[in-house]
């Protein structure tokens, strides 16, 4: 067994309470999704840095030992990757998701290559999984906690990089400026701290993501688990003390798991803000959401960089098209109004 004192602990290990009591164990059974493993960098590719458990970008060198978690990745602008037990693997995210990339965007360099040395084990020599540190589901439903419908809004997008996290940050900032206590949940995605830090920087007092609920990456988990986790995240934030909550769902509306989740949005939130890059995406995205019974509150995202495209989208959808700065400047609060807004 090797001492892990000098290892580079990735962001996905942030929920592990006592890293010093863990060690590199001998492989016994094939690792599963969410299991933590120790791997050695054999070739530095796209990811030249690892994000550590505290959010620091740590430079990677060949021969470095890293601690990450087995997982899949679904990223149309980056990697399609899967957990495939075996000695050879790739670093799928800077946050420490380890799997095998099977396809990638033409603009994306080849992945950083790893050799999996074995499982991370606890002081009983048992493999360590993120599931062991998952936050318990809150005991009460939000209605019974507050006596009223929770102030929760989902942010969904037409695709990866459509501006979802920036939109969520605009909502958080607007609520915080209005004197509300904002909470944020990253419902799906691949383990990385980037969005978490963005929420916190925007003013969110409470933040949860799928790591808190035992998943390094949500792609490939059973839909039932993701549905239950989405509700649990909202309930946990209410229990923590959040007044207003944003639930960000990764990837585009056509991603299979996202499509399953949006069908259940009316049971967990008041509606959705759709982040898109152009008016056609706004039109089809709003149609998809409405077909799923989701009230669409506004359109936002990259499209708001173009006043002309924003006007196109407003005409075809009949919805307010709000930039993140407009959300932060007051519109985030008005999205909760029951009355028909004046424009």
């Amino acid at each position: 067994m090797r001492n892990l004192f000098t290892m580079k602990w990735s962001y996905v290990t942030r929920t592990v309470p006592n890293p010093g009591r863990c060690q590199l164990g001998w492989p016994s059974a094939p690792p599963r999704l969410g299991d933590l493993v120790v791997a050695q960098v054999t070739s530095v590719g796209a990811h030249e840095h690892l994000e550590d458990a505290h959010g620091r970008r740590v430079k990677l060198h060949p021969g470095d030992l890293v601690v990450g978690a087995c997982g899949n990745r679904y990223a149309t602008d980056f990697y399609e990757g899967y957990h495939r037990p075996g000695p050879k693997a790739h670093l799928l995210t800077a946050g420490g998701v380890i799997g095998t990339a099977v396809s990638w965007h033409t603009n994306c360099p080849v992945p950083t290559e790893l050799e999996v040395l074995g499982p991370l084990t606890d002081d009983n020599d048992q493999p360590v999984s993120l599931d062991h540190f998952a936050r318990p589901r809150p005991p009460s439903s939000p209605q019974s906690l507050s006596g009223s419908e929770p102030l929760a809004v989902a942010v969904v997008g037409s695709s990866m990089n459509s501006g979802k996290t920036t939109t969520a940050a605009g909502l958080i900032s607007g609520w915080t400026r209005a004197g509300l206590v904002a909470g944020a949940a990253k419902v799906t995605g691949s383990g990385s701290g980037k969005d978490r830090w963005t929420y916190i920087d925007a003013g969110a007092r409470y933040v949860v993501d799928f790591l808190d609920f035992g998943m390094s990456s949500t792609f490939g988990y059973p839909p039932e688990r993701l549905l239950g986790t989405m509700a649990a995240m909202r309930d946990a934030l209410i229990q923590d003390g959040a007044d207003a909550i944003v639930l960000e769902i990764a990837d585009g509306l056509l991603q299979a798991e996202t499509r399953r989740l949006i069908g259940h949005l009316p049971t967990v939130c008041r509606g959705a803000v759709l982040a898109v890059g152009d008016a056609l995406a706004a039109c089809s995205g709003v149609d998809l959401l409405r077909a799923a019974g989701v009230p669409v509150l506004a359109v936002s995202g990259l499209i708001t960089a173009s006043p002309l495209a924003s006007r196109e989208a407003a005409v075809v959808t009949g919805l307010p098209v709000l930039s993140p700065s407009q959300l932060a400047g007051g519109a985030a609060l008005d999205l909760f109004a029951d009355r028909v807004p004046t424009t």
Partner: protein
Amino acid sequence: MMRVAAYLMGDHPRTDRRTGPGLLAEVDLDATVTGPAELTLAGLTVRDERGDDLFGGAGTQACLFGPAAGGGPLAGPEAEHQARGFGVTNTAYHAARALGLAARLLDRPLPPLLIRIGPHSVFGRGWGGGHYRLPGAASPPEPDLPETGGEIHLGTGRRFIEDGDPRRPRYFHVPTHNPAIIYHEVGHHICRHTADFRANRLRPPLDQHNGKVALDEGTADFITAVLLGTPDIYGWHRGHVPPWDPRRRRLDARWTAAWLCPGGGQAHANGTVWASALWTAHERVRQADSADFTRALFTAMNRFGSHEGEVTEEQRRRSRFSQLLRELLAADPAIAPTVTAAMADHGILPYGRNCELRARMQGRSTALPAQTADGASDAGPAPGPAPTPAEVLS
């Protein structure tokens, strides 16, 4: 006469920040319902312009609405209806009270005042304050020409009152519920028709100057403090701001001329220096012989604004603390020594430009400007172009 609901201030205890800025009570108001959301009193009209029929179901004897914790975007339609109705009656009560004080101290009524609620209200751009407008250029531009006598525009709110406990009920800070904001804006109306700091009486009626100088903001804050009966005028909605922070604008802090900031956009902060000096003088006069300092101030303001002269020169003169102080000392010689000492504690002397007062208070200049026979300073007004922001210090 009709019965309305309003928050009472002064001798009444200030209530919890979550339940409002004063004691909720029913009061008699000599008002008439003149529109779906409009009340008219002598010399005052208050109108909510968001399109609701607030008074359709109200009788002629009573308009009793509940504050509903300010209503706001998270409130239901009925709560919002109540909050808006209360906003109109609360605004009417406090504006009438301020105008009544002015009429009593000036021995004349001020020109009619129109208060419009929500004229700039659009989705996503809530506004938590108010402003006073005259016909003329303004920022942001006014889509409709304001009344020549002056208008107050009040926002519809943009945030909740913070008190650090998110689990307790929230109060949406809507300006119509906040007597401090109402009094401050009526204070500008009083200033316009007395001291007239921008010399608007000397300008064409439709080309009035809507900018405010420090004396204007500070005097409005002082009038607010007198009417509220407390120097912590914004303690309700800015209670989360530390008392020592200039944004709190507490008048019992000893803000001195050393804090004056040159450049535009500082009228409120610079005005706090003037307001806190007035409050100190007010308190010392009250403790000494209970003479009416506020009456002396109103008399001084009336005289201050009655001077004739070239507009630019008058604007320059009327931006100087020392000039208004001289008028104040002349208004009631009996309290002049007390007032002089109180104002000097804040670095405000009866001669010198604002920048000279600042330099002296900051220790960068110990020499006082020599006083001439007519009371003007050697370093005082000089012929030339309009003052720059740095000269005006507001």
